[in-house]
């Protein structure tokens, strides 16, 4: 069959350790977050702020699981049905996690707004501890600390890995965990406020927490949409066009047999792929020259995984300004 299968991407040796560490940390994250979900659920009682914090923690499970599933799939060799391979598994993971975040954030926001409007006074009773009845609020505060301290540590460990691997799901996930202290602090303010009889502080904090989840959800969903729309590769913080794009252009223009070039790249999971259209000066040795150029471009960085170089007469097939 004349279907061309893309070659699998191999992560370079110096990043293999990072990649394996990232996977290990994400497994730890998933197990830890499930335990947090259970602990917070048992302790949460009536507080809206705690419920919002619980949702934020539970939602964190999605990107972690998405990353793990994508990492299992992305290395699979291309098939006839999927000739481009499975690199985009990470993009799929990103979209799923982003939408989950947005939907749950909206749910939390709506329920806390309703609680505030209905002027609901949260009721927090007691629980038995060593024969004495203790205020359940203390247990809730302890649960909140459990939900934030390991999360911050995990976030700090994963962030540099995400930057080096240029992996969006991992980046956004670790960023969220590092910021978890704010959510937990909010939850604690809510519970402490209830103890002081300031019942509305709880709903207000919950609204703040869920608004930030919604804002996160919207930005991540928009980012994942941009990925689907095949935006040019950007730096991990999504602020600038990735420097490798310019590297590709300059290497092409440095070739003495090239008159002009047009470059188009897109992100495919952890790597970049794309098209390079060149107008050659002459027609001789074209195949060898193109082959050499392809080697040179792929040698720039492991992230440039696949470029298809086409010699053209002019750039009529493009929309030139």
């Amino acid at each position, binding site marked *: 069959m004349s279907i061309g299968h893309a070659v699998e991407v191999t992560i370079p040796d110096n990043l293999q350790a990072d990649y394996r560490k990232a996977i290990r940390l994400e497994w730890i994250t998933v197990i830890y977050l499930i335990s947090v979900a259970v602990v917070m659920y048992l302790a949460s009682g009536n507080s809206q702020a705690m419920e919002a914090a619980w949702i934020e923690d539970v939602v964190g499970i999605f990107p972690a699981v998405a990353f793990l599933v994508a990492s299992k799939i992305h290395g699979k060799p291309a098939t006839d049905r999927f000739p481009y391979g499975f690199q985009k598994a990470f993009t799929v993971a990103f979209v799923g996690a982003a939408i989950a975040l947005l939907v749950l954030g909206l749910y939390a926001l709506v329920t806390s707004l309703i609680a505030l409007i209905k002027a*609901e*006074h*949260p*009721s*927090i*009773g*007691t*629980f*038995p501890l060593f*024969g004495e*009845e203790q*205020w359940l*609020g203390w247990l809730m*505060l302890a649960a909140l*600390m459990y939900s934030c*301290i390991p999360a*911050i540590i995990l976030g700090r460990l994963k962030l540099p890995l995400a930057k080096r691997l240029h992996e969006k799901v991992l980046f956004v996930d670790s960023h969220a965990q590092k910021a978890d*202290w704010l959510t*937990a*602090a909010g939850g*604690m303010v809510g519970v*402490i406020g*209830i*103890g*002081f*009889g*300031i*019942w509305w502080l709880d709903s207000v904090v919950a609204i703040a927490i869920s608004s930030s989840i919604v804002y996160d959800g919207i930005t991540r969903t928009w980012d994942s949409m941009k990925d689907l729309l095949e935006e040019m590769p950007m730096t991990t913080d999504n602020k600038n066009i990735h420097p490798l794009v310019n590297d590709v252009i300059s290497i092409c223009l440095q070739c003495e047999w090239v008159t002009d070039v047009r470059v188009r790249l897109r992100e495919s999971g952890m790597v970049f792929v794309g098209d390079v259209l060149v107008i050659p000066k002459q027609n001789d040795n074209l195949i060898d020259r193109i082959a050499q150029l392809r080697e040179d471009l792929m040698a720039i960085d492991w992230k440039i995984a696949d470029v298809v170089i086409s010699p053209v007469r002019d750039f009529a097939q493009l929309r030139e300004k």
Partner: protein
Amino acid sequence: MLRIIAILVCFHLLVACDSYPRDPKRSLHTAQNQILKVGASEFSPWIRWQNDRVTGLEAELVEDFARAIGARVEWVKGSEGMLMTMLEAHELHLVVGGITADSPWNKRVALTRPYRKQDYLICSTDENLSPHTIKNQKVALLKDSLLGAQIKDKDGIPERLDSLENYRGLIAIATDERDRYACGEEHISLKPSEHVMAVPMGENALLMAVEKFLHRLDR
């Protein structure tokens, strides 16, 4: 992170000096050393109204609690629905009357943690009748018992009587009443009921005081 710990420490010291948690509407404060307004809905043996006097298991508990906070009880008679509505509006401090943990009022008022778990069973006072199944069998129960639903679930036929003394056959009773009716050993266990009291939603100091009192009795 150090900031969080510092705040919690300061806060702990603050709490040690004053009452914590507090009631948004100062319920415990208005009841302490004054009048405890209690709604009691009729439900034997928890609450029994006779003319204008209240007796029953929960009536005694409430009187003891009131004494513990130096208050005098003012009893209010009414149906559970009416009393819960008054409780929601903070017109009462407490509502009692055989309220269980699965009460549908739990979203509008605060229910204490269950202070008592009542077990029930079906046994036989007739040696020739074994209670291994009650399908299509008559099961006698007291007039104000709530066990009719569970009997019907098991395809039995509930028969309500004023008294179960001298009844020969299957009876549905509270487990502690077993010796009173001379039941055989064999029995079918029924779902227990968990008993609570109700305070206004969000009045956490009052809730804590009531729960502490009720659970001290367990020991």
